[in-house]
């Protein structure tokens, strides 16, 4: 668990997520709203029964990308504070895999920032989910993160 310069809380680990701690962290006297997103393990995928999930991450890069998301929310939205947590390892049905809390003076910014945070996390943070069914495990379909364009070479290769 690490704190950013904005006092945002970012957590990536195997321990279960304490949603109340994240909410308390972002909730302050000058807030008018706290919006949360609780991503939980669903019991089915494409009409198949899911038994459990396993998450793995490129941990150092994932943590950095989660910090980048938190920092970007302060630039894009009029918010006060952010907490983002993601679980790794084996998760059972119904457990929380990701939890995001955003506080703001007004609800609109908090809703929009929370939505932006989970949408961006799913596209850019190097975390992978393997779904386990009765007949084995399958890596979930994912999204290919955007990659910066190549900078032109100083001179063409000869």
């Amino acid at each position: 668990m690490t704190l950013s310069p904005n006092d945002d809380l970012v957590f990536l680990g195997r321990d279960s997520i304490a949603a109340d701690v994240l909410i308390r962290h972002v909730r302050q006297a000058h807030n008018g709203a706290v919006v949360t997103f609780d991503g939980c393990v669903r019991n089915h995928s494409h009409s198949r029964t899911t038994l459990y999930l396993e998450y793995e991450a490129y941990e150092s890069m994932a943590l950095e990308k989660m910090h980048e998301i938190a920092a970007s929310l302060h630039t894009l939205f009029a918010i006060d504070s952010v907490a983002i947590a993601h679980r790794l390892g084996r998760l059972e049905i119904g457990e929380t895999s990701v939890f995001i809390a955003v506080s703001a003076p007004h609800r609109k910014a908090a809703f929009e920032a929370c939505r932006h945070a989970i949408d961006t996390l799913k596209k850019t943070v190097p975390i992978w989910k393997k779904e386990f069914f009765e007949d084995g495990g399958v890596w979930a379909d994912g999204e290919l993160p955007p990659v910066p364009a190549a900078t032109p070479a100083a001179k063409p290769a000869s």
Partner: protein
Amino acid sequence: MQTRVLFFGKLKELAGAAEQSVELRSGATISDLFDRFAHETPALASFRSSVVASRNQEFAPWTTVLEPGDEIAFLPPVSGG
């Protein structure tokens, strides 16, 4: 030039290891590096269009020229959340 290479998710299973260290010529690109593994493990080659690379934990284009000591990772589509 020694380069540390990491594989994740499905790519880790195909490559048979989470981490490898390879010796590359100076001027080699991330694309050259991937091709080296794809040559040894053809199953990786068919996934190339579904792979992004990172260099020192930042997403990087295939044409990026490697520097000594770089940490390169090959990442399948991400599926967190």
